[in-house]
């Protein structure tokens, strides 16, 4: 049957994505021009930032609407717009902290910025996908760009190795995700999330075992992207080997995008049979939090420590998914936003202290930083306390909202385990602070070269961390208006 009616083909809805794609291309072309010395290569960072700001303004301007376009495969609602804003913020901060780093490490190629923009496009597609095809394409666009970014220091063996590990395991996980999509499609006859939901509601639950297997495989595929235990094995190695700004980017962006898709798929498509998947995610959340926090205790490398800490944070976010209520969704949005500020801020400090050929990533390298560079040490302390969940920082408020969402859904045991985990995490976050202030410097700190862009990134992170911690109500209100409208 040929459907002759004209599809709703609304270009305006994907305008932010098109703008980013366009600016990505401009960056690539400008890079070619700069290799002939016609333009200065330093402007590439500014071009990308302009693209991100335009996309953010366009995203802002379409709030408050719920529009389906492209044959109901793409949705523009407050939920996707909030996430898009998060991704743009993450990409913007990453570019700010990358500019000096990639010049210093001799990897100053235009592709770097273009790939960050392209992977942001993938994330935005994931958050706005209203069918499984769109979410899958978004996931792949994001992942493939980040495989390349991980191996961007292509003359360094550690970067190659991280990239290969990420690529092989990522492609492996994609296979599972795809098989899950295929089984879901085969048993429900639809790839559109709303149609899947109405099919399951009609049948009165998941009667077909193939459908349950399909859902399980979707959990595997998405669990890999958000780095939940037992699909976390790649995280520490990849985070250690990747260039530091890329580590900052991928510890936040893909995780947020993974959760955007996770919530969208499981709360809309499988929302009516939540009792089936809540048990699985419940166990995953406990394992993820505990293993992340316990493994982080014994790390001596700060990038590996933050890798395990990011696994633990994925565990906290899984609690919000288990709660499966509106409060859980808005808590996820708030927490991801808070996590961007504190995590990228911490990586910014690591980049400031590192030098060419000397990454300065052992925790003992930070001894005496409090006396030599008090401002940097204060900022680092702030980020660490926020991640540990100490009031009045953003991390505390985020955790508070997530745990209340769990209690509201009756998961009191889970909330107690999460609080215990949070207490364990204080040890390794505070250890850095203690080393910074209470140990004699083991090494000389050379005079730091800190660029204006880096200062801007750190200031934005500090302000964001404090702002969300002291005055959370305004952002929380926006997050509450962004709960899923699709149901």
């Amino acid at each position, binding site marked *: 049957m040929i459907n002759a009616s004209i599809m709703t083909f609304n270009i305006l809805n994907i305008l932010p994505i098109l703008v980013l794609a366009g600016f990505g291309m401009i960056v690539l072309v400008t890079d070619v021009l700069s290799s002939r010395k016609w333009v200065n290569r330093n402007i590439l960072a500014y071009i990308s930032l302009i693209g991100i700001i335009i996309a953010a303004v366009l995203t802002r301007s379409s709030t408050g609407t719920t529009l389906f376009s492209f044959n109901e495969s793409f949705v523009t609602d407050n939920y996707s717009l909030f996430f898009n804003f998060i991704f743009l913020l993450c990409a913007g901060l990453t570019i700010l902290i990358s500019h000096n780093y990639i010049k210093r490490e001799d990897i100053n190629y235009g592709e770097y910025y273009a790939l960050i923009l392209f992977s942001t496009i993938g994330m935005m597609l994931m958050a706005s996908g209203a069918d499984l095809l769109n979410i899958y394409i978004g996931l792949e666009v994001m992942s493939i760009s980040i495989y390349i970014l991980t191996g961007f220091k292509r003359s360094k063996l550690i970067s190659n190795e991280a990239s290969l590990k990420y690529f092989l395991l990522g492609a492996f996980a994609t296979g599972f995700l795809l098989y899950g999509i295929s089984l879901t499609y*085969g048993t429900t006859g639809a790839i559109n999330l709303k149609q899947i939901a109405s099919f399951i509601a009609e049948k009165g639950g998941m009667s077909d075992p193939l459908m349950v297997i399909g859902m399980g495989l979707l959990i595997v595929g998405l669990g890999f992207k958000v780095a939940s235990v037992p699909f976390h094995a790649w995280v520490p190695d990849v985070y250690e080997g990747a260039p530091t700004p890329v580590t900052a980017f991928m510890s936040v962006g893909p995780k947020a995008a993974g959760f955007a898709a996770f919530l969208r798929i499981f709360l809309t498509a499988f929302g009516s049979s939540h009792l089936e998947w809540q048990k699985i995610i419940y166990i995953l959340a406990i394992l993820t939090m505990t293993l992340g926090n316990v493994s982080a205790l014994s790390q001596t490398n700060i990038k590996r420590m933050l890798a395990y800490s990011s696994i633990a944070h994925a565990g906290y976010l899984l609690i919000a998914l288990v709660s499966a209520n509106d409060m859980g969704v808005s808590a996820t949005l708030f927490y991801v936003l808070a996590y961007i500020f504190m995590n990228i801020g911490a990586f910014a400090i690591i980049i400031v202290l590192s030098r060419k050929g000397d990454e300065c990533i052992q925790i003992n390298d930070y001894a005496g930083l409090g006396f030599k560079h008090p401002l940097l040490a204060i900022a680092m302390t702030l980020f660490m306390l926020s991640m540990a969940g100490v009031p009045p920082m953003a991390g505390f408020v985020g955790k508070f909202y997530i745990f209340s969402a769990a209690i509201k859904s009756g998961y009191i045991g889970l909330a107690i385990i999460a609080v215990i985990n949070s207490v364990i995490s204080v040890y390794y976050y505070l250890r850095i602070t203690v080393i910074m202030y209470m140990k004699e410097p083991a090494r000389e700190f050379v005079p730091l070269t800190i660029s204006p862009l880096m200062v801007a990134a750190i200031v934005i992170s500090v302000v964001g961390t404090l702002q969300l911690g002291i005055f959370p109500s305004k952002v929380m209100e926006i997050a509450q208006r962004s709960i899923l409208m699709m149901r």
Partner: protein
Amino acid sequence: MITITHYLVLSAILFTLGVIGVLIRRNAIVIFMCVELMLNAVNLSFVAFAHYLNSMQGQLFVFFTMTVAAAEAAVGLAIIVALFRNKETVNIDDMNIMKW
């Protein structure tokens, strides 16, 4: 008479072969080929479902999967080449400079 079950069983067998290959082979390129086998097993199930359900979406999905797999192959082989230039091996047992 070949039914949907036959196709699904075949696709499940191919998928499992791919998974086993990824887990036991040690050459990065062979592992990557096994991943491709997994993706193609899924494609088979998509086409079978599309025929059985009489809907086009499954076939549409296969085109996108193939495109993505091609992009992934380009990136993956480039990563393997970059690694081979520095290390002169593609055996994943030798990828051990980062350890806990």
